[in-house]
C-alpha cells in the first residue's frame, strides 16, 4: 500500500507513528471528548432551565440560587474550563483538518491552546469564584 509520501496515508506506517501512543495528540483528543460530553450534558440541563423561565419562573429562580452558590460557582468554573478548552482545541482541529499541511505544527498548536487557556482562563476563574470569598467574609 503505497499512498504517497505522507506518513498519515498508510496505516502500516501509522503504527510506527508515536502520536496516538500517548503524547500530545492523544491527550488533546481525550480531553476534547471528555470536555465535549461535559458541555453537552450541561446544555441539556441549560435548555431545560431556560425553558423554566416561561413554564415555572419561581423554580428557575431557585435553580439560579444553586448556580450562584459556592458549589455552583466551582461547577461553573469547571464548565467554563471545559467549554474554553473544547473551543480552543476545536480551532486547532479545524486548522489541521482543513489545512492538513499544518498538522506538522500540531505540538506548537497544542501549546498555544494551553497558553491561551491559562492567560484568559485564570482571570475568568477569579471573577466567577471571587464572590465565594465575599460570602465567607
Amino acid at each position, binding site marked *: 500500500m503505497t499512498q504517497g509520501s505522507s506518513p*498519515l496515508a498508510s496505516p502500516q506506517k501509522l503504527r510506527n507513528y508515536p502520536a496516538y501512543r500517548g503524547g500530545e495528540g492523544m491527550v488533546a483528543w481525550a480531553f476534547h471528548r471528555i470536555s465535549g*460530553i461535559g*458541555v*453537552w450534558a450541561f446544555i441539556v440541563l441549560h435548555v431545560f432551565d431556560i425553558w423554566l*423561565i*416561561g413554564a415555572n*419562573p419561581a423554580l428557575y429562580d431557585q435553580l*439560579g440560587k444553586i448556580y450562584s452558590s459556592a458549589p455552583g460557582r466551582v461547577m461553573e468554573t469547571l464548565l467554563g474550563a471545559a467549554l474554553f478548552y473544547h473551543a480552543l482545541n476545536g480551532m486547532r482541529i479545524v486548522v*489541521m483538518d482543513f489545512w492538513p499541511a499544518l498538522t506538522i505544527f*500540531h505540538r506548537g498548536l497544542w501549546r498555544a491552546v494551553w497558553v491561551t487557556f491559562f492567560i484568559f482562563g485564570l482571570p475568568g476563574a477569579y471573577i466567577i469564584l471571587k464572590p465565594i470569598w465575599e460570602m465567607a467574609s
Partner: protein
Amino acid sequence: MSAQKYSLSGRPRPTGSRADLYVWRAVRITSIALFVLALAHFSITHFVYEVGDQSAEWVRQTRWNSIPLRVLDWGMLMTVLVHGFLGMRTVMQDYVPSRIRRGSLIGLYVIALLLFVLGTQVIATLPMR
C-alpha cells in the same frame, strides 16, 4: 494525495459514507460559529453580568427584551444542537455496543428534538414585559 484515513487532529475526514462526510463538515463549520457565539455567551453571562442577578424577571425584561437578541440566541441554540448532538452521535457510535446502538441513537435524536421544541417555545413565547 489519496484519501487520508488517519488524522493527528480530530476524526479523519470520512470517506465511506456521504452522510458521515456531511456530519463531519457540519460539526466543523458550526464549531467556528460556536467559537464566537458560545464564548461570547459564557462571557456575557459570567463576566459582564453576575450569575446571581439573572432572575427570570431579569431575563424577560433585560436580556430578552429585543427580537434581534432572541433571534441571535435561537440561532446559537440551533448551532449548538447541530454541533452537540452530531458530536454525541460520533461518541456513541464509538462506544455503544452495536446491539443497542440504533435504539440509543434514536433516543439521542429524541432528546435533541425535545430541546429544539423547549428552547424554541420559550424564546418565541416568553412575554417581554
